[in-house]
């Protein structure tokens, strides 16, 4: 399938791809670190209580999930901002 070569804004494209890659890597790294730290500390945190839950259980059952959802929506918003910066005059929506 033939493709058209876009406008010669090479530097803008590189910058966009770099920012996209950094954001993707950061989001996945943050989420993985959150999950790993919740797993590693679950047993020891269970001696503390939060909202009537053992804290280690709370993180795995609710805390990490809520965090992931917040990070997910933040990612969507930030990536949209990055995309709009790249293509102010073109159609995205």
């Amino acid at each position, binding site marked *: *399938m*033939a*493709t*058209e*070569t*876009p406008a010669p804004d090479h530097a803008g*494209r590189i910058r*966009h*791809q770099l920012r*996209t*890659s950094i954001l*993707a890597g950061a*989001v*996945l790294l943050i*989420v993985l670190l959150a*999950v*790993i730290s919740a*797993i*590693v500390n*679950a*047993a020891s945190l*269970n001696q503390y209580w939060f*909202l*009537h*839950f*053992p804290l*280690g*259980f*709370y993180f*795995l*059952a*609710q805390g*990490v*999930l*809520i965090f*992931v*959802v917040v*990070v*997910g*929506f933040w*990612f*969507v918003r930030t*990536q*949209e901002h990055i*995309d709009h910066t*790249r*293509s102010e005059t*073109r*159609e*995205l*929506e």
Partner: protein
Amino acid sequence: MTSPIRLRTPNPHLGAYYGIITSAFVALIVLLAMFEQLGWREVIIAQFMMVTPLLLYVVIAVGARTVDIEDYFTSGRRVPAVFNGFVLAATSVGGVGFLAYTGVLFFLGLDGLAIGLGLTCGLLAGAVLFVPFLRKAGAYTLPAFFGQRFRSRKLRVTASVMQLPPLVLLLAAEIQIAALIASLFLPLTFSLAVFLVAALVAAISILGGMRSLTWVGSAQFIAGAVGLAVPLVTVSVLLTSLPAPQFTYGGVIPSLQNAEITAGLAPVQPEGVTTDLPHMMPEPVVKPFFQSFGILGEYDFFLLFLCLMLGVAALPSLLVRSGVTRSIIEQRRSTAWAMLLVAVFALTAPALAVFTKLLVFQDIGLAPGAALPDWLNELSGRQLLKAGSANGAGGMGAAEIYFTRDGIALMLPTLADLPFVLTSLMAAAGMAIALAAAGSHLFTLAGSIAEDIYRVLDKGAAELPRLAAAWGAIAATALGTAIFLLIADTDPLRAAITALAFTAATFFPALLLAIWWGRCTEGGAIAAMGAGFSVVLLGCGVFGADKAGLYPVYVGLIGAVLALIAGIVASLYGMKPPAATLAYWQELRDPDGETIYDRAKARAAAQAANASASAQ
């Protein structure tokens, strides 16, 4: 003919339509609750509660029927983000998640949370790594994307063949769950229920393809959400006086811990227990809910989470929906909505398991002094549990009751002594979610056979033969899966985990390299897919068919690592990718403009029109 983005406006009345559907479903529940009080028999109530929504799904599918290729494969690329999120969430959770995951939590407690975390994080990983780029490519199937990315028919056919095993396993698991519910609540044998469920799912897919699956799937998601919420909120109000079970079940933890001790549940010693998930056949609970890492150790918990995360992120049934929204931004938003909805389910499932376990063990704890609880006979009659003989003290302990893993969610209303209409509502909810997921898996599988294999064989196929190939593939796949289910002895949870191990090893590394690494070549993609697929096929199918525990998870993760290495090595040692492939990759990474596939199609149509005009 493909329309530009701005002309693809979704139906402005969608909200009203689905508001009416939700109201009708709630009205049905209220009506049946009234009839139950007037003396209607449970059998009649169950039939109305199960069959009425099924009729509604068929009516929606008939209304959404289409013979337009773009509508059939991409729902016209105008589905609003929230509605696509509904179907994505229903497909991710599925009947297996709805029934088997709640069962796993009932048996394993904290150790089972890896599944909910894996599903949610898998959607996030998909949204970050793959979905926007697949939306930009605009291919109708995942193998078609590989074919276009590397300009390779060989790769396209290879990918299509390699997605058969995981999708057949997932489809079989969902049909099995739906048939199990149907055989419990309707006057049907399991075999007949399997064929009827397969026929229903096939009919919906044939009528309107992705279009009917989207609009029927949205209604099924609503039925599933209402059906889960109403009984659970009612039980929550009864037990904690608050209607937010996700946040209030912490209040019953001391009662649950006391009930578990009274019923004879002691903390499990990890070294004395086989690392394994609960099976489909009835078995007793051996682990207290809040004991951390009693059956699955910390490493197994993480590996299960990681395998499910990678498998969901690269699941073809979810990625094939990447082309149905208006734009890349809408597609990313729809995956975020799906992630939110799956997270809400993952927050809710532990509440359901805790309430169920509390009600069971509280009553069992009282049994030596009082009579055995009424629900014991009722649930035994529905084959949701098996009671062993009473112990020496004249009562029952945790070891004397064998619970069916996939029936835990259905037990809750009976345990709480709620009207039967709520039990049948829970069953209708599980059925709805299982049907939505089965429809997605079936269409992805059959659509790929028609688009990636038939179309490669018959390159000049017009729209109608392409649709006819899809219809035939859907019917044949549904029939084949139903026959497979009757012959094979499958466990839905194990089938789903093995399927996700397949997708984690086969598609995750290949997609990662194809989208994020311009240097990746056709040979690299084939090597990655081939290595991952071979490892899981040999590990789970040939050498590990009788292995228990988390074996598919280990094999899937080893396969994913080997596939990544194979893809990188094959790409680096092969020839550099041609300029046209690199140009496609650059354009794929660009968030601007129209879908690549649609633009190429419009260009081809214009060239054909010009050629025709000049010939005249």
